[in-house]
């Protein structure tokens, strides 16, 4: 994935900041000044080894030069182009110049950000329309409310027309029908109240996260994961939508239970001593490894503890909990890369998996992943077991060691052509 425009400009800016001459940087990085000049002016692609040498000479992490916020922007722009082509149904006629995405973002950063933001907004709106349609068609509460209204209306209409009809109705029947109408009118009032409440549009529709689960994730990030186990948080979740509230409550209760079973400061000390290895900690506390992983994600990134991300999904691969960490993202809607250990362990419940993985790119972002899937601890005879997979993610920096497994950002924006798990072509090729 070439990112010469952006990387070159960034190298130049860093060098200027350090008041370093071009010749000196070139010398320190072991390349010719004219070559560096071409790189800085975005005329040459830059390979991993040279980039690392320049980064060393500038005393910055190579990822600072190669994978900034712009990498995300480029990915969003490519996705926007692919979505637009897909929507019109004629890829050839409408496809933007995807091969020039870097140039576009480099030369018109404001416009590029606008395109990306609009594409995101479009995706959000599409998602909301789909969710609302789904709700109208399938929500059992809506169907029940409608049925109530129609039943009550039917009964009232039929009964009242008997009473106002020309034929005489004896007194006993009259009294009975009056009582029925009164009863049904109350039913109708209650059902229509529920229905109106259900159909009432929320005022801040544009700002809401797509799903209650995303709302909970965003709240956890805002609130801070480490304090989420506290009892005072219960009042704070009042700001969440009614659907998200019980989900947040369930997670807070689970966090609280984990904090009791593996209490601080003992847990923090043990985690450091164990090198944050979930297996060691699971043995030490006699807890399921999936619990230990979630507990590790609750430890703040201070005092020698690494930054961590976590993903929890169900048997259908749908995320139920997500804590982001630099560079780590999984799609909420749409298809993720099946090579993430999170999905690999779904087929082998009870078997933990530790993998180093790398995202594609000239300076691949790398993560240490610990994953394991567990069946529901309270199984039932009459239903198949539910399954939950947990993956703890620790971003890795420094020199590359070992041979990380390739994972991707999702087929559509993944540059790995020869991939057994590819579902659809990439827009990058």
């Amino acid at each position, binding site marked *: 994935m070439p990112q010469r425009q952006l990387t070159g400009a960034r190298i130049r800016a860093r060098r200027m900041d350090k008041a370093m001459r071009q010749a000196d940087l070139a010398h320190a990085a072991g390349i010719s000044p004219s070559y560096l000049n071409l790189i800085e002016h975005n005329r040459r692609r830059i390979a991993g080894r040279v980039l690392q040498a320049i980064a060393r000479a500038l005393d910055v992490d190579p990822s600072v030069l190669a994978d900034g916020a712009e990498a995300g922007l480029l990915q969003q722009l490519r996705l926007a182009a692919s979505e637009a082509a897909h929507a019109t149904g004629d890829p050839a006629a409408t496809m933007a110049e995807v091969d020039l995405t870097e140039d576009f973002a480099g030369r018109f950063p404001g416009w590029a950000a606008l395109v990306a933001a609009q594409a995101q907004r479009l995706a959000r709106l599409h998602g909301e329309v789909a969710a609302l349609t789904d709700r109208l068609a399938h929500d059992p509460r809506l169907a029940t409310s*409608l049925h109530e209204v*129609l*039943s009550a209306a039917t009964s009232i*209409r039929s009964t009242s027309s*008997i009473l106002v009809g020309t034929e005489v109705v004896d007194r006993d029947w009259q009294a009975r029908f009056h009582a029925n109408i009164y009863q049904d009118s109350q039913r109708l009032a209650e059902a229509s109240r529920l229905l109106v409440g259900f159909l009432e549009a929320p005022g801040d529709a544009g700002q809401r996260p797509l799903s209650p689960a995303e709302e909970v994730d965003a709240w956890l990030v805002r609130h801070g994961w480490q304090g989420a186990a506290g009892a005072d948080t219960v009042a704070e979740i009042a700001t969440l939508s009614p659907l998200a509230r019980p989900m947040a409550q369930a997670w807070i209760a689970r966090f609280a239970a984990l904090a009791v079973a593996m209490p601080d400061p003992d847990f923090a000390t043990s985690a450091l001593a164990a090198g944050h290895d979930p297996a060691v900690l699971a043995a030490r506390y006699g807890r399921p490894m999936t619990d230990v992983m979630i507990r590790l994600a609750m430890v703040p990134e201070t005092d020698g503890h690494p930054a961590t991300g976590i993903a929890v999904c169900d048997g259908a691969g749908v995320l139920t909990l997500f804590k982001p960490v630099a560079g780590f993202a999984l799609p909420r809607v749409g298809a993720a890369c099946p090579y993430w250990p999170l999905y690999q362990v779904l087929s082998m419940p009870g078997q933990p998996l530790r993998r180093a993985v790398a995202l594609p790119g000239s300076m691949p972002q790398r993560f240490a992943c610990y994953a394991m899937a567990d069946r529901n601890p309270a199984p039932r005879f009459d239903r198949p077991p539910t399954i939950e997979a947990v993956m703890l993610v620790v971003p890795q920096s420094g020199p590359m060691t070992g041979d990380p497994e390739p994972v991707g950002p999702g087929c559509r924006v993944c540059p790995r052509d020869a991939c057994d798990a590819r579902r659809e072509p990439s827009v990058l090729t």
Partner: protein
Amino acid sequence: MAKRVLLIEDEPNIIEAISFILTRDGWTVHTHSDGETANDRITAMPPDIIILDVMLPGKSGYDILRDLRADPRTIHLPVLMLTARGQTRDRELAEKLGVTRFMTKPFSNAEVLENLRDMTPP
């Protein structure tokens, strides 16, 4: 002898109102509220006509209708279906299953009587 109609519906007040107007119109009205046992009741004592609600506890009106049409004894039995939704999809499903007529809730009493008269040979 009065014609017999079987009303299969689970809303007590609707049962009461419809029973009243049909009885007054000269029908002998039997009622049944449980979807699950409806087919047994019909075959045990076949009426001249059936008024069948779609939303029933235990078994839906569509399933009851499907079983009626699969049974040679009830294959031609006139069925007036009451549906809470007037959507084309439901209408098509009912017609495919062999419904004789149907009415959308909330209907008028006159509609019920008119439909029943039309559906029964003199």
